[in-house]
């Protein structure tokens, strides 16, 4: 179904933007022109399918990155949801699954940092509680040490150790220079080394 706006309404910028937003959703999820009826059953199924694919492929990665910033399930889950919503809004140009993942992680990182900036965090950290309750003081010690790092070190540490990205790839995701990322990784590891001392091997090269 074609979406039409009356002449007056078509001249209103925010209304045009809303129209474009909906088109963005349809385009990003690969809608066909002949199926463009908003909120139809077919739309719901298509949106559901595409969102489900993204969640299956990258959901855990996004959740873990968000968790590394926010330290709790509810906030991290909301970041996953917001990241999914941003995908069709931004209509990103993606050349490969790796590029797609990097884009999603970049959005999730920025959304997480915005949340920290506006201090909208919950205090509870169920992961810490779980590690303690299971008697995994070793892991709890590491987790608390990582959590104590400044955000700029923590995000680099996460992407390097968890996602296995190179410093250059991390630089592209975080929009920083490679030199800055290498410096932040070095300093982050130095701080961790100070906290963890000789409990873990920190001699991995950059």
């Amino acid at each position, binding site marked *: 179904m074609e*979406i*039409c*706006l*009356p*002449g*007056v*309404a078509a001249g*209103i*910028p925010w*209304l*045009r933007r*809303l*129209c474009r*937003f*909906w*088109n*963005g*959703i349809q385009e990003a999820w690969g809608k066909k*022109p002949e199926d463009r009826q*908003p*909120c139809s059953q077919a739309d*719901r199924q298509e949106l*559901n399918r595409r*969102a*489900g694919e993204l*969640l299956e492929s990258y*959901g*855990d990665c996004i*959740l*873990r990155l968000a*968790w*590394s910033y926010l330290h709790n399930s509810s906030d991290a*889950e909301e970041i*996953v*949801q917001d990241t*999914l*919503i941003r995908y*069709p*809004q*931004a209509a990103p*140009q993606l050349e490969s699954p790796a590029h797609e993942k990097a884009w999603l992680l*970049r959005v999730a990182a920025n959304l997480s940092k915005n949340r920290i900036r506006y201090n909208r965090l919950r205090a509870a950290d169920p*992961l810490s509680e779980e590690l303690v309750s299971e008697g995994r003081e*070793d*892991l709890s010690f*590491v987790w608390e040490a*990582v959590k104590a790092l400044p955000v700029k070190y923590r995000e680099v540490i*996460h992407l390097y*150790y*968890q996602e296995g990205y190179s410093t250059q790839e991390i*630089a592209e995701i*975080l*929009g*920083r*220079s490679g030199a*800055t990322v290498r410096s932040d990784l070095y300093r982050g*590891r130095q701080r961790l080394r100070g906290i963890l001392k000789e409990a*873990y091997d*920190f001699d*991995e090269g950059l």
Partner: protein
Amino acid sequence: MTKAYKEIMERVRLTEEMEQRVLMGALAAMESSASSRACGFRRWGALAACLVVMAAGALLLPGLWSQPVEPGPVTVTPQMVSAATQQELEELVGFPVETLTGLPFTPTQVEYTAYGEMAQVRYVGEEQTAVYRKAVSEEDISGDYTLYDHIWQVERDGVTLTLKGNEEGCALVLWKQGDFSCSLRFTPPVEETLAVDGAMGKE
């Protein structure tokens, strides 16, 4: 450290319940936006209709009732499609789209896409890409959510350009061109002068 950190993060997983909540929430938000647009359409459509009736009544009262009521002018929301040529892209978006001639590399491939009322031209070189976007808008249309370390402005030919980048250089240029918002994104970032030349060199 890698092993310990990965072991910690292995515990962080999307459960089925979480997936369901995320999916439902995301879909609801998207549909809500679409519904808002639909509501806006109805509200503004009604207002437009009232205005048309009032104006017509004031000016053309004798002939009003004898004329069939025509539906108001419509703007069909265009489908977002790839275009084969710049001319085809211009026809799709309904406004001129310039060719960027000042890019700091020689494109080996040019891709044209109409995203609704937004035009996008992607210039692909050997190791560089530049994505030019243009649309009637007051906002940043780049779709680039990166939080850049540096944001600054320069003037060129009477146009104020907002540049965003990091230590490697300028990654994004934003500027206004009459009613249009334009953006040019470089991958990888380039020097400020090259970025500005790229944005302002047009045919």
